[in-house]
């Protein structure tokens, strides 16, 4: 009972954040508990679940749009017809609509087309406003149509396009007219219209001229770049960037393409080609590393797959690989190599030391990764060796670039036995941290020794109550407490 209480209090008090604690001075920790209790007791009084609004379990109010989609779609997909249409998908038994020849001009998509699939000319459309494709215009006053054939200024044209109306751009023939049209669109900030006019310009202007004119029209330029990116016109896109001398962007954009290459060998080839692209100096190093890493991974992968299949290597038999190492990050690769290839000499591509050297992996990073890998294998000797340094006299000393408290954490996460743990807890320099860790992980020896060194008799006596009765620890505490040579501070 009492103990429960303590636990509860710990639960509600455990935040150590000063600026953000739940309790403050306020009227008691278990406010949430209180409301929970109230809620629970009320359950007995009222019928449950009769919420006013009807909710399906997923929480969608019945009748909401997403709920209805599920409902109505379900009822139809359940019919046998629905099922077999899935199977027939893509089969050629249904004649597809004839593909449009690409000879239609841009203006034709501003024109209407009747349902039977034949395109109408602009004049047809005018004489027959009853055709269905103009239905959207029906509620608009007739007057809107009256100026169909008249010459619109760029301004009028843009305004009509803004309202989603049919316009022919072909009339704008001279460069000056075309640019006026573009400038007008830019000045109304309507991206949709700007893009439509850019498509027209792209089709009717020479590339160099288009690029030159856009260079002094930044807004339009950005829209074209966005458009080319969206539509995947990579070549024109890169040409444009090159023309603008935005070489870094060219490089990155080309590099991005590697993501769509699935085959590792092809991806490697592609990355190799990327190395000479004009990246910024920092990025260039990373891209080079990316290539080298994949090259390495391909070699390791081929080798290890073979080893694993042959079934000769014990490590692969005991710990079969979960996934291929291809395209994994560098640190993951290092972990892999510390796991499967730890003892290999620096000469092999798969050895950890080789990786460390090739990619200039910092000591800290290396030790962390190696530690995690070796601890996972419970290879405590390797762990020990990782932190042992010899000085020139041959004395050994323990040293960790990451701090021994981190070492303890990692070992603990890999469920190292107390004997191993306490060896490293003992090496934690800060006394308080050491004591905390030792108590947390029940390294009694370390706790006892630390109190002895602190000459703290009270704490030692208190700790005696916490260890098991009749255990070796208790004996040890007793013998220390009875040691007359120690000058206790209390």
């Amino acid at each position: 009972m009492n103990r429960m209480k303590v636990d509860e209090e710990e639960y509600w008090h455990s935040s150590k954040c000063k600026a953000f604690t739940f309790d403050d001075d306020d009227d008691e920790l278990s406010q949430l508990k209180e409301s929970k209790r109230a809620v629970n007791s009320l359950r007995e009084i009222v019928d449950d679940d009769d919420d006013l609004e009807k909710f399906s379990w997923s929480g969608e109010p019945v009748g909401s749009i997403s709920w209805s989609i599920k409902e109505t779609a379900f009822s139809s997909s359940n019919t046998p017809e629905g099922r077999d249409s899935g199977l027939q998908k893509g089969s050629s038994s249904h004649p597809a609509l004839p593909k449009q020849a690409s000879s239609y001009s841009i203006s034709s998509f501003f024109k209407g087309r009747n349902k039977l699939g034949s395109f109408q000319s602009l004049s047809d459309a005018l004489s027959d406003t009853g055709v269905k494709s103009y239905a959207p215009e029906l509620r608009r006053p007739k007057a809107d149509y009256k100026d169909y054939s008249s010459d619109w200024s760029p301004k009028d044209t843009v305004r009509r396009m803004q309202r989603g109306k049919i316009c022919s751009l072909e009339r704008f023939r001279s460069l000056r007219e075309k640019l006026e049209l573009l400038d007008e669109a830019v000045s109304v900030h309507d991206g949709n219209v700007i893009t439509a006019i850019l498509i027209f310009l792209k089709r009717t202007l020479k590339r160099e001229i288009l690029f030159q004119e856009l260079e002094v029209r930044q807004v339009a330029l950005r829209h074209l770049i966005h458009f080319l990116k969206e539509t995947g016109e990579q070549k024109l896109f890169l040409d444009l960037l090159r023309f603008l001398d935005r070489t870094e962007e060219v490089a990155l954009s080309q590099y991005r393409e590697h993501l769509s290459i699935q085959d590792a060998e092809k991806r490697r080839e592609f990355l190799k080609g990327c190395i000479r692209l004009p990246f910024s100096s920092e990025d260039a190093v990373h891209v080079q590393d990316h290539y080298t890493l994949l090259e390495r991974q391909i070699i390791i992968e081929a080798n290890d797959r073979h080893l694993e299949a042959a079934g000769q290597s014990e490590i692969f038999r005991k710990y079969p690989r979960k996934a291929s190492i291809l395209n994994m990050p560098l640190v993951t690769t290092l972990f892999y190599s510390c796991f499967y290839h730890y003892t290999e000499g620096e000469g092999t591509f798969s050895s950890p030391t080789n990786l460390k050297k090739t990619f200039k992996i910092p000591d800290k990073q290396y030790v962390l990764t190696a530690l995690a890998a070796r601890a996972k294998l419970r290879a405590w000797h390797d762990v020990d060796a990782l932190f042992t340094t010899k000085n020139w006299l041959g004395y050994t000393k323990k040293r960790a670039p990451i701090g021994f408290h981190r070492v303890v954490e990692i070992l603990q996460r890999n469920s190292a036995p107390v004997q191993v743990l306490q060896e490293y807890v003992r090496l934690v320099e800060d006394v308080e941290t050491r004591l905390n860790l030792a108590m947390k992980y029940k390294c009694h020896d370390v706790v006892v020794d630390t109190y002895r060194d602190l000459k703290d008799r009270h704490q030692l006596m208190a700790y005696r109550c916490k260890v098991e009765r009749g255990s070796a620890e208790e004996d040890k505490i007793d013998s220390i407490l009875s040691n007359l040579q120690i000058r206790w501070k209390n």
Partner: protein
Amino acid sequence: MASESFAESRDRGCHVIGRAWRGMAAHLSSGRVNLTALREAGRRELREFLDKCAGSKAIVWDEYLTGPFGLIAQYSLLKEHEVEKMFTLKAGRLPPADVKNIIFLVRPRLELMDIIAENVLSEDRVRSPLRDFHILFVPRRSLLCEQRLKDQGVLGSFIHREQYSLDLIPFDGDLLSMESESAFKECYLENDQTSLYQAAKGLMTLQALYGTIPQIFGKGDCARHVANMMIRMKREFPGGQNSIFPIFDTLLLLDRNVDLLSPLATQLTYEGLIDEIYGIQNTYVKLPPEKFAPKKQGEGGKDLPTEPKKLQLNSAEELYAEIRDKNFNAVGSVLSKKAKIISAAFEERHHAKTVGEIKQFVSQLPHMQAARSSLANHTSIAELIKDITTSEDFFDNLTVEQEFMSGIDTDKVNNYTEDCIAQKHPLIKILRLVCLQSVCNSGLKQKVLDHYKREILQTYGYEHILTLNNLEKAGLLKLQTSSRNNYPTIRKTMRLWMDDVNEQNPNDISYVYSGYAPLSVRLAQLLARPGWRSIEEVLKMLPGPHFEERQQLPTGLQKKRQQGENRVTLVFFLGGVTYAEIAALRFLSQMEDGGTEYVIATTKLINGTNWIKSLMEKLEPPPF
């Protein structure tokens, strides 16, 4: 229009029955500005389009739109207008449906056009009767998309191609959002102004409904653009000279890149934390089901539900309205007080002796049950959140954030960040921390920046070069160019860091981040009093121009303020706003001597995680 009036009467019918869908809009009219009118306008436009396609219909939905649409209309409205089936847009062939019209309701996106084309092309011409196709673009028709449909050879198959300008969607009585997820990326990375155009359009609609806004203030390049567009649109459509008495006094347009800091910090309000941890989408949140298992007697052994519990969160729920904007540390006490009140109310039944008293008790029961279930839900949510906020890692992360924001050790490699990388915490968390440090230091020193970059690329993969580049382009991550770090000056002048923060009974907006006062909201606060002239120097340090415009009102419409009447300011966040910032503005609205009430509009409701995510390169290979 018989069908429409029928719909109206059905609507009322639902309202009587309970909190049915019509009633769900009641919270929109609770604020200073009645946003129901905006919702009504949206519903009207939708009905008009549906009636244009005569006969029975099926709607094929762009899945992303169903959430926002749910805030405008429910299925019942569609059904009144002969929508019999609804599907989500998927590649392949359309499911069979015996309807006359197929309506595609989609965002103007090229990849969606390809799917639509596939649907149309694989339509079984032989077996199924001829169906009419229509396409409704939300919020804007796109010539680019129509071009794609044409390239695919299907453009001519559509009878109606129209747009449904769902620009600003009412989320709550004081909150509007365009829910345009890529707006920030488009504006600040790609310099595409389409979403700004949409914002300006949305503002024109608002002015058509609520009167011309006489004063416009702004800060930032995008703000300047939007103001320009509005002024131009007004000039070009003189028919729009409206005679509605203006409800808004002021419009404040703010660029998100004026304050990149606020979304990066962890929000500490109740609603903010729900969003940080579980993500709120279109007012809905999905929660782990364990804590919501129905605990009835005799059902102890039943299996736990495995599907997430979905809840709607808005001010229609009394309790939620009360706690959502509080610092999470103040939520517990409110919940416990509520619990006592409800318990007492239920106790009343023992005192009810006469038939009349019992009757009265019973009549209150539905309300009490609703309050009880609301309390149960929020107690569970608070417990879920508490499990996280009391974790060691949450604390460590928060400590580092607060150190950065208060200006401690922003110029060297941070140990905690390094540890997180070593332990391979989620990349987005790392990026949030590194960007926060960069913003709080006006950029990082070359050595520090290089170190972080190398660690990130080595641990998470080199392909993230692309993401890091995007963050640099957006200004979230940068090299300290000048030797001067401006952040401390900005912090001090604007009082962005408050050491003594009162979370229970706040007296300053800094409570929403337990110490940090969001810069964006400070700008709004200082604009109202004493005016931006007092911070000219700091305004110059922040990116983009600051400006003021006035829109002339006809003499009859000029406002004569009653004594003690508050001004109404619309704050429009271009590039997104967080729930914590919203909470801070609501706090200012409620201040007794504040003098200003705020309505908030934005391109998207964001948090640090989904914001950073929108800037990351999509690294998954294309599905094929």
